[in-house]
């Protein structure tokens, strides 16, 4: 398969004007910054967002997600505690959903993005098509991680029954939301073109 890069060409992402490689820093027609000029920057952003997401993911798991106040009793539960509680109560389905949405997907995303970022530099690890599919999955699934945050937000908004029952979001809810947002930004920052860079085109 022939790529623009291998042909020594690069297209402007804005107007589509094709430049020769090595291209000028900017599009000669519209002045847009041409990709491939500094591919390291793109990867840097990926790593930075990923790192930020990881940092805030730690308190999201340590601190309580929900602060439930029932008849004067205050219960705080972290994400994992919530999952364990749900299991104890026999709600295996819900427990599974929460577990997948809150723990498996974010952690999977971290690994996936990290893998993609590394694989850009070491191209021999996976087929480009598979990597591209992985990227698409990560990007698609990213917003669904927010399901946990939505649940917390809805509960906190609805269950404000004063003394009988009150639910307030904990620090973890904010941290988790930030974590999801950061990983989404990280995925967004990833330039899928870099997967195809340098014409590493081994046939299947």
């Amino acid at each position, binding site marked *: 398969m022939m790529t623009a890069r291998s042909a020594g060409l690069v297209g402007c992402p804005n107007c589509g004007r094709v430049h020769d490689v*090595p291209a000028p820093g900017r599009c000669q027609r519209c002045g847009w910054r041409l990709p491939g*000029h*500094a*591919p*390291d*920057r793109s*990867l*840097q*952003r990926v*790593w*930075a*967002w990923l*790192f*930020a997401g*990881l*940092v*805030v993911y*730690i*308190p999201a798991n340590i601190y309580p997600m929900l602060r439930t106040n029932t*008849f*004067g*009793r*205050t*219960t705080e539960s972290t994400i994992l505690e919530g999952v364990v509680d749900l299991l104890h109560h026999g709600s295996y389905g819900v427990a599974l959903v929460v577990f997948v949405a809150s723990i498996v997907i974010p952690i999977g995303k971290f690994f996936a993005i*990290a893998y993609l970022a*590394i694989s*850009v*530099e070491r191209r021999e690890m996976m087929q480009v098509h598979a990597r591209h599919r992985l990227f698409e999955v990560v990007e698609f699934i990213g917003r669904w991680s927010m399901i946990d945050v939505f649940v917390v937000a809805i509960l906190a908004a609805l269950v404000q029954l004063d003394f009988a029952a009150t639910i307030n979001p904990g*620090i973890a809810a904010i*941290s988790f939301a*930030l974590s999801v947002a*950061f990983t989404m930004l990280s995925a967004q*920052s990833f330039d899928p073109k870099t997967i195809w860079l340098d014409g590493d085109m081994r046939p299947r």
Partner: protein
Amino acid sequence: MTDQTPPLPEIDQPNRSALRNLSVVWLVPVLALAVALGIAWQAYSDRGTLIEIRFENGAGVTAGETTVRYRDVVIGTVEDVRFSPDLQTVIVEARVENEVLPFLDEDATFWVVRPEISTQGVSGLSTVVSGVFIEGAWDSRPEIATRSFDGRESPLFVLPGDEGRRITLNVSPGIQLQGGAPVTFRGIQVGRLEQPDLTEDGLSITVDAFIDAPHDQRITQATRFWDSSGFSVSFGADGLTLDVESLASLVTGGIEFDEVYSNGQPVEGDAVFEVYESEEAARASAFDVASIGEVPVAVEFSNYIRGLVPGTQVVMANDQIGEVTAVTVQSVEIADGSKQRLVVDLVLDPGRMGFPVGTGAEEVYEYLAEQVADGLRARLATAGLISSETRIEFAIDYDARPARFEVAADPYPVMPSVMVEQTNVNTTAEGVLERVAALPFEELLSQAIDTLASIEGLAGDPALRDVPEEVVALLTEARELVGGDETQAIPGEARAAVAELRGILAELREAGTIAALTSVIAQADEAMGPITEASAVLPEVMANLRALSETAAELEIEALITTANTVLASADAFISSEGMAEVPANLSASLVELEALVAELRAADVVGSLNTTLASTSAAAEELPALVERTDAVLTRINTLVGAYGARSAFMGETMDVLREITTAARSIAQLARAIERNPSSLITGR
């Protein structure tokens, strides 16, 4: 995850440094890291310090949920509940805020607040739903902080920061008290009791009481505590008394206190007070500690007295001034052999007698000597109506024989005594009855009955009943005589007779008829006096009889009243009989008539015409003796009547005497009644 900076690609601007190639986005994770670390640090520094509280049981204490509070503000949370290595205690580990940490010293205490419903009220109700919590209390002085505490099983009633004073009370086992029970001063709660506890020897109960400031100023040596719980029923001279304190103290028990005398010295240090069973006992105990000195005195009694034991009160004007210390019997030699006498040793407290602090024995003796000279004596008295409790009383006895206060006597100065019959209620009541019995009721009654019987006899005497009739008849006769034609004719006849008399004047002069007539009239005049006197006395008799009946009625003595009533009825019947009532009037009328007749006789120019009619009176002279005879008869009957009255006057004197006696007796009974009315206690006390 390592920070792998991507390798720099070959670029056409090699002058760019690695640092400048870094994306600004890196600021985000750095910032996030900083924030996360910041939060972590804050959480770590804010999480407080772990303290250990040991409880006997951990009922309701849950790790992670149970809070630790101070003044009802959450200062921490229980983190762990575990056992001590020997499983004897429950160790609760709680993380408390660092803010309070410096105050958690030796005096800090913790207890578990549970819902409690008591007579003091409902407390800890919120813990029913929210679960128990651990309450802590400590004072406001930071001292050497510790991390390990012994928890209390029961709530602390007095918080360490409270201003006031802690005192210890000794309670006799009969008094029921509960922790938290109120300590009141004149009904106002000024403190609380803590949990009662047995003393080490197990014989009595000790309980700490905390008196809030500023009422703790009232705790002096004069302060006495007593059990105000329950109700007391007392029966005394004032009647039946029911005393109920507040309902709360009825159930949980309560302690009341007061100063039983003024100018109590402040109590220093840890004070221990006795709790008395009743207010009376507490007030009576004033002597126990109040003593500012003891002055020994002895009293001798000539006979043995029951109930006199060491500890017996010595009172003066109803205030205790001392107590008996010893009672000994001594044998003394007297003229005819030996005699037992009772020597009672007393101690007197000058403070209770009103002497200032520091008064020596000499001054007390001096005072007693003066008082003894004025009649102060020691005597025995009973403490109350029902009680047979004996006490020694110092009282002025004006009838006492002169005596001296023997200051020089050995071993103690001797106070003179007077014997008073033991005036307990039995002897007093007996004495009253004896005195009542000793009243000459029977004599009085028999005398009254006799008197009234004789009055009745007199009144019932037919002769006496005839008297008025006789008098009336007499007067009628007299009137008939006076109004009779013959009498009426007398003047005419007399005139004629005078004419006739003129002739026989000399004869007449010799006969002395006029003088005789005049003397007769004088006699009649004389006779009138007693009659008038008797008439004047009659109303007095009646008044006396009425007075008698009134006093007799007051006495309510049936026999007397009945007799008196019958007697008086008959006496009234007699007195109010028509004839009797008419007696004086008739008498006066007849006497007036008589007088008029005599005056007429006198004034009818008897003397003047005598001279002229002397000659013509010889005929009439024959009739004169008849006239004189009839006049004599009248006078005789008058005399008889007067004589009868005269005889009665002796009887009447007797009656009067008897009545006077009755009146006197009635008056003395009335006086006795009035005296009892004025001072009913004399009936009881015998004084």
